[in-house]
């Protein structure tokens, strides 16, 4: 067991090294677009790390995490939109001004997503299995159609933010600096994930997934455990949404689409469910495939589909599982 864990640990270190070296190489080789692509992978990985808390540890297959991604995105879009037009977000009962300051935007994105996750979790967690998948999808669709017809903030056209928001002490318009910021947040989220998994809370949550009766027997409420996990999970995905919006300097209802929820799940499965670095490997591979296959043919979705199919049929436990053997937590 120790040997296997070490192998996964080594793999994680290699991925981490790649996340640092690749952009530095791109900087040296003057390939700024590679840095943009890497940033996209890192931000999507962050969103999937959030989902992995609910899905990997808690066994909650949410097909509605785009809700939080979109809320994070719109938190950024709305605040920055008002800041760039010098209007206030609301005047009554108290005045809220827009802002272009990243830490404040992140805070708002995280808090609002957490609150939404609390409400959605409260209602959705009464169900389980496929019903849970579908009720989270239903909430996703509600937000999607709402955003499309929300004309104050662009409706389907979305909102363009002309200049990337600022972070004290950094020039976020320089791709590598923004990348560094995103990577730091991803690492913090991974550290949180790892700590959660080992904490009594994580162990209880994991137990609630496998044998809820036993958890109940020791006086813990599985519903509460899951709700807390869902809230943390939604908050992290919301933060990723704010970063994604800043990366593109643009938000639109597609951030709420069910395809995006599906893609987040795909990242996790490709990488390996409940693996610390699973979402990171999955998102990086997906972004790379999307980029390289797109240049091959107009019909590149066929190749992408075939590859995904091969991973499911023959890759047990995702890519990390294939290279590092079975983990201790998941079957």
């Amino acid at each position: 067991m120790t040997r296997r864990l070490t192998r996964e640990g080594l793999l994680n270190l290699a991925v981490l090294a790649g996340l640092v070296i690749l952009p530095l190489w791109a900087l040296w080789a003057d390939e700024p677009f590679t840095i943009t692509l890497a940033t996209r992978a890192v931000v999507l990985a962050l969103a999937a790390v959030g989902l992995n808390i609910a899905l990997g540890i808690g066994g909650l297959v949410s097909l509605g995490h785009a809700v939080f991604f979109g809320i994070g995105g719109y938190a950024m879009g709305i605040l920055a939109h008002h800041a760039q037009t010098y209007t206030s977000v609301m005047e009554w009962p108290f005045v809220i001004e827009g802002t272009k300051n990243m830490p404040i935007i992140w805070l708002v994105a995280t808090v609002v997503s957490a609150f939404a996750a609390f409400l959605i979790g409260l209602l959705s967690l009464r169900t389980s299995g496929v019903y849970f998948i579908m009720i989270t999808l239903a909430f996703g669709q509600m937000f999607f159609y709402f955003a499309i017809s929300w004309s104050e903030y662009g409706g389907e056209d979305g909102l363009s933010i002309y200049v990337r928001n600022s972070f004290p002490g950094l020039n976020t318009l320089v791709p590598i600096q923004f990348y560094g910021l995103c990577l730091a947040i991803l690492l913090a989220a991974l550290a949180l994930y790892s700590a959660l998994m080992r904490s009594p809370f994580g162990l209880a949550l994991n137990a609630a997934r496998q044998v809820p009766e036993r958890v109940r027997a020791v006086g813990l409420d599985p519903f509460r455990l899951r709700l807390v996990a869902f809230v943390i999970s939604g908050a992290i995905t919301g933060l990723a949404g704010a970063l994604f919006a800043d990366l593109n300097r643009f938000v639109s209802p597609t951030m709420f689409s069910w395809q995006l929820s599906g893609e987040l799940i795909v990242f996790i499965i490709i990488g390996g469910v409940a693996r610390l670095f699973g979402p990171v490997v999955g998102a990086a591979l997906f972004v790379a495939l999307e980029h390289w296959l797109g240049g091959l043919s107009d019909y590149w979705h066929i190749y992408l589909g075939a590859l995904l199919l091969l991973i499911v049929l023959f890759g047990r436990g995702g890519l990390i599982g294939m290279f590092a053997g079975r983990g201790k937590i998941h079957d």
Partner: protein
Amino acid sequence: MKFAKTLALTAALGALASGAAAEMKIGMITTLSGGGAGLGIDVRDGFMLAIEQSGRDDIEVVIEDDQRKPDIAVQLADKMVQSEKVDVLTGIIWSNLAMAVVPAVTAQGKFYLSPNAGPSALAGKGCHPNYFNVSWQNDAFNEAAGTWASENGIGKVFLMAPNYPAGKDMIAGFKRFFKGDVTEEVYTKLGQTDYAAEIAQIKASEADLVYYFLPGGMGISFMKQYAGSGAEKSVMGPAFSFDQGILGAIGEAALGVKNTSHWSKDLDAPGNADFVASFQEKYGRLPSLYAAQGFDTGLLLASAAGKADVADADAFRAALKEADFQSVRGDFAFGANNHPIQNIYMREVVKEGDVVTNKVLGVAATDHTDAYGGDCKM
């Protein structure tokens, strides 16, 4: 400090490259996969045909597929600007993707030529000297239709469009010059495929005319269902719902429907017949209005390339603004906000032999300009 040096180096390398071979690089971001691919493929094919016929071998075109996703389009635009170092971008089909990409690339000093879509924001307050619309402002076809309806004694209309910004633009455009009454104004779900409920409302309505904007598959579904419903009100819309690719799928259900367009394959304009013939010969299908727009965009670009070096942005901008090319639409010029001044025609869907297609009835609006130029300060 270190980053500043890198940037300076990049700029120096860029200058060196453009000095070595005075060629121009074009980035085309358009929709080539998924449900909306037909439009992007037509724009691309029309554009490439024009470049090929121009005989210029100093124009290099990089083509990428945006999958109709705004975030992918933004990412590709970054790639075009940062890695490919293109001089001019073009190709986007959808208003929402244009809104995501255009402000960012023009702010970075690149040129953008729109071969389709013209959101009102980019024609008015958000206009930019480097943004040229070679197609239409979103309201144009609808304004012309509203004018035509008023002039032809139509008193009451039923309006219908999807509930999203382009849909609301289109409805507002129709109402701008329409003098009669709007009896109903219905907003449908984006991507809706069943219009039974709306058709029942139409049948119960007192309107003389149904005017609708439902692009792509939505329009196909509506027209097929309308034809079999027993409703007898006449129908009108902008050309998007009656384009060649769409008429093939609607069939005879569309016969007699009137629609407004700036181009038609039977339009009597210099070079149009040659364009239709050469497009059909090369690609084996009739060109659509998207293909015509792509073709005109290519012609415009080639004409400007013949007059100025793209490295001299001011001269190149002036060359674009002259619009010194023979559009397949006939007379074409840019207004002060770089949007087209062109005729909009009324067409009718007819059957020629076995093919359901459009026939030009006459001019609906002469030298039409958009309504937003007044807000444009540049």
